[in-house]
């Protein structure tokens, strides 16, 4: 019975795909079903395989997706870049992180004592793709806001540690530059806070407190979720001008979104290509982590 029903619905769908609909009716299924009854044939369509690539890959490895700008696309260059990226990832562990995560980056620095420098800070922005992917870390050191731009695949980077893996409410946190310093101050000797395996990345819904104007940007125009006190500092004229520059129609502008994204089919192709490599690297990292948990006591004296 169940199989029969399935065949029926399938044949109905098939009929629909090719049948010309002569009149516009909102309930055409009855007629079509009646017409479809006599020819019940088992249609063996192409067996749909389960996708191997996990759906969250596009968030974890966004830099593997190329720039959607058509003029800059080049299939060969993109592929070579992907190979280079995987080569680099074999050499160094580049962990999953997001805007709002707290990272510690150790990089070669010819001018630093010991030739390496370690910088701890919150990731306030991620941009660019491919080998040029980069991120900005921010911290306040000696009452001075410091930001360092790191290229993710820069060969001078020696180690990237994620001290606290979390997201914030906004896609970029440039407003921390205008916030009170305690919101971007992080201890340099901070311990890593490991997440449970398989747990979703927590979203930190902290609301940042801005200092009074003048600001670096017109934050009141950007619909920020992670700022507490914008209303405190803006006047009516700011409110009016902010209203004027809003673009509420953009969420319906499908072609604009299409031109800013890589279509799903293409994403699948790209991630299917790099998935096995990335997966083995992930497994290796997990194994190494387990090894690292046991620390051999140092023999002193």
């Amino acid at each position, binding site marked *: 019975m169940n199989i029969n029903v399935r065949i029926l619905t399938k044949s109905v769908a098939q009929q629909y795909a090719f049948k010309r609909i002569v009149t516009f009716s909102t309930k055409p299924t009855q007629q079509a079903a009646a017409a479809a009854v006599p020819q019940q044939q088992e249609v063996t369509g192409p067996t749909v395989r389960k996708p191997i690539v996990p759906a969250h890959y596009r968030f974890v490895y966004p830099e593997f997706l190329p720039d959607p700008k058509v003029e800059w696309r080049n299939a060969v260059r993109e592929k070579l870049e992907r190979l280079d990226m995987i080569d680099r990832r074999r050499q160094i562990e580049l962990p999953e992180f997001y805007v709002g995560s707290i990272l510690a980056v150790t990089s070669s620095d010819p001018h630093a004592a010991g030739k390496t420098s370690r910088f701890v800070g919150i990731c306030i922005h991620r941009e660019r793709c491919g080998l040029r992917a980069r991120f900005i870390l921010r911290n306040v050191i000696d009452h001075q806001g410091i930001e360092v731009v790191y290229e993710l695949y820069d060969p001078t980077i020696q180690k990237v540690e994620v001290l606290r893996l979390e997201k914030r409410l906004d896609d970029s946190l440039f407003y921390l530059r205008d916030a009170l310093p305690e919101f971007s101050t992080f201890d340099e000797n901070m311990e890593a806070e490991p997440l449970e395996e398989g747990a979703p990345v927590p979203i930190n819904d902290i609301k940042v407190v801005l200092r009074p104007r003048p600001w670096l940007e017109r934050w009141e125009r950007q619909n920020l979720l992670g700022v507490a006190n914008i209303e405190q500092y803006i006047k009516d004229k700011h409110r009016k001008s902010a209203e004027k520059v809003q673009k509420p129609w953009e969420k319906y502008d499908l072609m604009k979104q299409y031109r800013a994204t890589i*279509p799903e089919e*293409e994403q699948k192709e790209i991630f299917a290509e790099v998935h096995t490599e990335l997966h083995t690297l992930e497994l290796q990292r997990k194994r190494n982590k387990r090894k690292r948990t046991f620390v051999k006591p140092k023999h002193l004296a």
Partner: protein
Amino acid sequence: MNQADVSKLMSQLRIAVRPTKRNLKNPDGPEGRLLKLRKTVTALVKHERIELYYNRADEARGYAELLISNAIRHGDRHKATMELADYWLLEKQLVHKLFKVLVPRYENSNVSYTRMFKAPRDYPGMYYRKSVLELRGNPYPVLTPDNSQNRNLLHNVLLDEARKEFRREKLANLANKLAAETENATASTTATPAQAPVTETQTEQSKQAEEAPKA
């Protein structure tokens, strides 16, 4: 080198997409442009075939395709898709048509949902290019000439030849069969000449029976 937007997933369009949008000259800016395109998309879903200027048709085509593909992908239980349909279809009864008629029509299709043709423009008249935009599987007669019966098309030439060969082979087979039978018959009559007349009449009858299908 900007990062692709990963917050949204869209299915690939089966039409050629221009790298940039057309502004479609509008005093109300981008919002007015979208209103223009909404009118076009609504008309397309309503009438299934419309004739209009090329630029506007080409712009509206992408939106119509994406609207249908989103409706297929998410179905009518998805709130965001419903909002999209509500925005793009100015006449609200067409929302029903989108989900109940167009989605089942295109569910299993692997080509684009719309077709676009270049149309001749009036002379003398506006110099803008014109076009016809239509949904596939519409009830109107097709616009393109049906060339599948053209005798000079390669597949038709090959089919003709195959047919001729088949006929030739069949005739040859028949001829061979007949020759073999006549030989057999003559051999049997010469081998048994002194048999009873009853058998002779039998052989004659059988001969006639064999000749009958030939006629």
